[in-house]
């Protein structure tokens, strides 16, 4: 019963988010300089003539007044017709969906790495707080936060693919292809969250129930894993959720460097080409993903913390 109510409520919110986001994107895109017709024709640094631009603009429906375009756009959003890409003339929705599996694959692997690093490193550093493991963990976290992912990616390709030949440098295929991109995605952020998790866990030690558990003879690691961890991971769950949603939306840098045929590399092309229908469709797609992930996060909260249920 309560679940149905909860989901119904969230669905309503989803619609509101999609509406605002689509409006916002529409405005942002139209107010930003850049003429898609010009950009489309200017590819390869070819000179272009005015007549060609005008013809294309007419073709793309960019000559209509802004509010007409907006009305049209809104209509389309909610009838699930997100228009055709300017570049490929294919329906945006099929284009997005065709790239989505690749991104999901990468995001899932990235999340796995992220989780492993966050939980593994976070718990380890908390258990051995102030020891050498902790210090290494801190250095890793800082490197993770401060080293740009493009650099990490290039280094890994260089050492593991070019020098050692262990993994392919790019592209999508068997599991080997996933290793380097998912490491790039997960390591840095995972290390940062590991730090936050450690802090949370150690603060939990102030709680009386930890002392009571110690007095019952439970080992410190047991307490950390089963009592403190769940508590401390709650803020992390939100962040992991946000990040997972980001990754599901495509990680632009990682996807371009590894030539991963997912949403990220697609959208950056679309942005460069001012492919309005694609950008708009993507933003709506992303917002739906986002809200869905956060509904999931809320559900997880709901399960973790019984106090929130009443």
């Amino acid at each position: 019963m309560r679940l149905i109510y909860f989901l119904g409520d969230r669905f309503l919110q989803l619609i509101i988010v999609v509406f605002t986001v689509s409006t916002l994107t529409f405005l942002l895109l139209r107010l930003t300089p850049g003429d898609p017709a010009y950009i489309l024709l200017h590819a390869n640094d070819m000179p272009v003539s005015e007549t060609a631009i005008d013809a294309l603009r007419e073709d793309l429906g960019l000559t209509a007044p802004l509010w007409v375009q907006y009305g049209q756009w809104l209509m389309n959003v909610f009838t699930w017709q997100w228009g055709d890409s300017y570049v490929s003339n294919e329906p945006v929705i099929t284009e997005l969906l065709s790239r989505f599996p690749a991104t999901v694959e990468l995001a899932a692997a990235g999340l796995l790495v992220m989780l492993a690093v966050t939980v593994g490193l976070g718990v380890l550093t908390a258990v051995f707080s102030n020891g050498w493991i902790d210090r290494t963990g801190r250095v890793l976290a800082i490197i993770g936060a401060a080293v740009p992912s493009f650099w990490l990616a290039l280094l890994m390709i260089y050492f593991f693919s070019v020098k050692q030949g262990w993994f392919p440098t790019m592209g999508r295929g068997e599991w080997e292809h996933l290793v380097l991109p998912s490491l790039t995605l997960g390591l840095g952020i995972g290390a940062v969250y590991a730090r936050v998790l450690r802090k949370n866990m150690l603060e939990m030690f102030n709680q009386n129930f930890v002392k009571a558990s110690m007095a019952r003879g439970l080992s410190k690691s047991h307490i950390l894993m089963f009592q403190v961890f769940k508590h401390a991971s709650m803020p992390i769950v939100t962040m992991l959720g946000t990040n997972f949603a980001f990754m599901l939306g495509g990680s632009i840098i990682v996807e371009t460097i590894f030539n991963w045929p997912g949403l990220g590399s697609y959208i950056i092309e679309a942005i460069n080409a001012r492919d309005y229908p694609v950008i708009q469709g993507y933003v709506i797609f992303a917002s739906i993903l986002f809200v869905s992930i956060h509904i999931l996060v809320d559900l997880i909260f709901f399960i973790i913390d019984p106090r929130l249920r009443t």
Partner: protein
Amino acid sequence: MSLLELVQVTKEFPFRPRKHLWWKKAGRFQAVKQVSLQLNQGECLGVVGESGSGKSTLAKLIMNLVPVTKGDILLNGCSIRQMKDLEVFKRMQLVLQDSHSALHPKMSVREIIQEPLLNFFPGENIKREATCLQLMEMAGIDKNLLDRRPYQLSGGQKQRVCIARALAVKPDVIIFDESIASIDQEAQQSILNRLKYIQAQENVAYLFITHDIETLKEFCQRVAVMYEGEIIDIFEEWKISQLTHPYSRLLLETSEETEIKIAQES
């Protein structure tokens, strides 16, 4: 008219069915069942009852910390549901059972006790430090604990800080929920004496939730016995004849038995 009046107050909590699935609609069970009570100005009403009989829940209901399911609570004839919560808190104070989690871990004793002074009596800046010390003395807290933080205090000391904090507000009603349980007998006695004194001076009413029959006998004008969410007995004297419910009789008998046994031993 009585100061505080409870009219058929009922509180329901969701009840977990046997094989509970958390998204299923939970069953309900009544933690407080149609309780009616009156508390007069300057009176001390004791509440005893079995563990889990709804005493703490009742206290929270009175303070409007949890919403009542049915019934109404009137303070000076005015429903507390219509009042702003700060107004309620100005008139009534509650000292919770669990003193450990009732204190902010990063605030010192001084800050904790001065907090209500600062909020409710913002004008009296100069007197604050003095009032604070006075309150501490009243609750029997050593002066050199002033700058300690809660985790540096013993159980009894924490409870006394909670009491001092409640006294600071100078309310009309104070509800003590098991608030002197971890304090040693001597100190208990001195605190009770102080409370009596304050009661006489300022006409405060107390709602005293405790398990200690001795205290009840000595300190309270009236005693209510709670059992499974209901008030089964309200009496003024501790006599078997006055008690109607078997549980209250049992309660009295047990306590007397203990006393007899101790008397025999010594």
